[in-house]
């Protein structure tokens, strides 16, 4: 079959490649332990961290070497078979949702740390290496890898590159895009490209910026060079209580206005602390309507100076209680509650749905008020945790997928939050990616010209449109359909989405 050129306008039609021939071809390229195709083996791959969406792939390939990656890509390119790359499967936007006619390419077996250079402050790793494992390998040298998504014990660096992951410290230390120096990647046609280097810039267009956050739609990353930074001598965190969520929001702006860039600045509302505390015993103030976690790091003198300034600002903004971590153990306990917010939501509710909009900080109050109204409108509870310092919101909508209609109401609730994020001058996704989940919301944020250009960018790397199709960027056809439904029903349902 001759694969059709990928287009911005209409969905691609992937004729079914002959399953038996494809599996035989992959079996020739991969060791037996690196190819799964029996239903019971495929089952664990039917979804990623967003389990509301599930599909079964034709096969899962788990290459151990770059040569095997090249082989799989060439074989699939020749047969016109889509590829869905997958890291640790912790993603929250169904970016690794399998394509029913495609092959899942898991990079989980490529998990070697190839080289740590403490003098140059660089680590060269394979994509399947866990985020935290890099910092652990660098710890002996007093160095670490800065971006720390909440899932850092499990998520892989390849997945971080695909999503441009952030974390709780990115206001001061940046996102993945600010901390990766180089990637080595394989294009869909099997060609290997080196993007970036161990210097601070590379000639030509900044393809590194384009690749990071590309959600596996441009190339398959087989090696990553990350920047390591010195571990601060000391870090301390203030836990500040507020009797009003708005006041907490104003305090966030006031800290920034005072010329302070905190190492971390997080907010949790009362329902969030109530969900977390019994689980983690972080010592949170359960009477507060909202708490802020405000961290300072640096030398002992520097931290003392900054903590004093932060305390003064927070007190001025009406904090009802301030506690400064007195030991590293206490600091980690304060953070443990924040990092456990998602699993805690999973304990108090059958299911939860995590949103990821970003808004200008000053619009936080409007957003919170609107979310409270949406809770009533949709008859669902929502607990709120925010990367307040950079305006990135993670409202967690609690629902039960077994109750008929709840998932659909949850999706509508989520879509309304994302639409409002765009209307308030923000974005539908700050760090989790568009994936499959937010593809319709892309039609709210971008017009047809931008979407066409995104498709054109993709086609510059992947002319056949085989890498992670139907993710990240909607076709214009899809937006038209979505828009029409929006107008006619006023009630967002996506019957065309398969939900097994």
């Amino acid at each position, binding site marked *: 079959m001759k694969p059709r050129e990928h287009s911005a306008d209409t969905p691609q039609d992937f004729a079914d490649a002959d399953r038996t021939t494809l599996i035989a071809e992959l079996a020739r390229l991969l060791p037996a332990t690196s190819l799964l195709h029996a239903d019971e083996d495929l089952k664990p791959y039917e979804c990623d961290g967003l389990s509301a969406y599930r599909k079964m792939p034709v096969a899962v390939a788990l290459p151990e070497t770059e040569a095997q990656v090249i082989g799989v890509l060439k074989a699939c390119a020749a047969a016109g078979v889509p590829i869905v790359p997958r890291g640790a499967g912790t993603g929250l936007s169904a970016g690794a949702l399998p394509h029913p006619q495609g092959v899942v390419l898991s990079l989980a077996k490529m998990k070697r740390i190839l080289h740590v250079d403490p*003098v140059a402050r660089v680590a060269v790793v394979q994509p399947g290496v866990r985020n935290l494992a890099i910092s652990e390998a660098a710890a002996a040298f007093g160095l670490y890898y800065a971006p720390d998504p909440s899932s850092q014990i499990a998520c892989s660096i390849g997945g971080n590159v695909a999503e441009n992951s952030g974390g709780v410290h990115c206001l001061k230390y940046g*996102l993945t895009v600010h901390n990766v120096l180089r990637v080595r990647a394989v*294009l869909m046609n099997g060609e290997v490209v080196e993007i970036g280097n161990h210097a601070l810039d590379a000639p030509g267009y900044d*393809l590194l910026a384009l690749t990071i956050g590309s959600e596996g739609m441009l190339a398959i990353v087989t090696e990553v060079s990350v920047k390591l930074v010195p571990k601060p001598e000391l870090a301390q965190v203030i836990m500040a209580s507020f009797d009003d969520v708005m006041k907490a929001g104003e305090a966030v702006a006031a800290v920034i206005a005072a*010329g302070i860039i905190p190492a971390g600045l997080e907010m949790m509302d009362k329902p969030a602390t109530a969900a977390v505390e019994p689980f983690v015993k972080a010592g949170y103030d359960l009477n507060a309507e909202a708490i802020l976690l405000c961290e300072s790091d640096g030398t002992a003198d520097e931290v003392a100076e900054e903590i004093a300034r932060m305390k003064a600002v927070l007190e001025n903004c009406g904090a009802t209680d301030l506690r400064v971590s007195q030991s590293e153990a206490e600091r980690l306990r304060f953070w443990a509650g924040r990092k456990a917010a998602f699993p805690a939501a999973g304990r108090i509710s059958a299911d939860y749905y995590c949103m990821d909009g970003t808004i200008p900080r000053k619009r936080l109050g409007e957003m919170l008020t609107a979310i409270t109204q949406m809770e009533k409108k949709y008859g669902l509870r929502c607990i709120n945790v925010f990367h307040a310092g950079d305006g990135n919101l993670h409202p967690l909508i609690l629902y039960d997928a077994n109750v008929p209609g709840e998932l659909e109401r949850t999706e509508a609730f989520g879509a309304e939050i994302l639409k409002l994020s765009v209307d308030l001058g923000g974005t539908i996704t700050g760090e989790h990616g568009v994936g499959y989940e937010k593809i319709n919301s892309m039609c709210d944020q971008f017009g047809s*010209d931008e979407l066409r250009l995104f498709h054109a960018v993709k086609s510059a790397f992947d002319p056949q449109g085989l890498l992670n199709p139907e993710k990240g960027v909607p076709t214009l056809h899809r937006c038209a359909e979505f828009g029409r439904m929006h107008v006619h029903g006023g009630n967002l349902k996506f019957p065309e989405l398969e939900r097994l």
Partner: protein
Amino acid sequence: MNQDDLIEGFRARILERKPLCIRGGGSKDFYGGPISGAVLDTRGHAGIVNYEPTELVVTARAGTPLVELESALAARRQFFACEPPVFGAATVGGAVAAGLSGPRRAAVGSLRDFVLGVKLMDGEGRIHRFGGEVMKNVAGFDVSRLLAGSLGTLGLMLEVSLKVLPLPPGDASLRFDLPQDKALEALNRWAGQPLPLVASVWEGNVLTARLAGAQAAVNSACRKLGGEVMGEAAASEFWRGQREQTAAFFTASDAPAALWRLSLPSVAPPLDLPGATQIEWGGAQRWLRLDAPAATVRDVATRSGGHATLFRGGSAEQRAGGVFTPLAPSLMEIHRRLKQRFDPYGVFNPGRLYPEF
């Protein structure tokens, strides 16, 4: 002329499908490949559109003079920390298009790292908005950062949104007498420690280091590192001379006219090339004034793990293959395709980045 009419004027020029040279203050006419095409002057499209100090974001029209942007930030005790050169007349759009970063680059990040969003007119006159005014945004491909350093070859930037930072309260500069190898060793050692080191210059066996951050951190770093403390006025003048390339190293008339910029891993040992050398960015940026065949310089840079740019001057022969390091064929093919998709009629700054497009 009002801004809408101005934009319509730009569009009309673009739709003529003839080569254009997008130009702001013209302060970097010397940089990149030869200029061709009729000048499209962006300076009429100027002004700060939005500045929110508590959001750490400023949005300005492309033709806004960089000095105007910087004085607005300074009034609120903030700054554009990557410190691109002004070279007299730089505009915001020109700074982003050139993608050059100043002395603090190794510590605070590159210009590209500070780009949050752009409004762009493509080669068919269509206006796009990518990114935005928030710190974290992963919706769609990161086209805004792709444009940083693209030398205007992908489109006409109309507005850009940039991240800004508070001015650090503490600031001190130290001097050390050190030969090149010892200076490189010290810089790499210091960079691996939690020190507020934000900039460095080595030249003529003198290493100058700038510390900035919390006052307490600067004070304790000064005690730890030793060296000779520079006076405030002299230090300020010194760093301005680096940023603007008005320092003697760049202006001396008795040195070869060709100024090479080598971007290398910071740990690369001293280079086996003649000519005056100056080192910035903790070892990662090395300036050389020398007359040597381009191939020789590029070869040394490539073997050291980086690349070389003929930044200023040089003979026609040295500039013949382009001033930037040639790309691997697979990357060049991606470049060509991207260019074709943003600018199908080859209107924008042809040949400015690579002779191929």
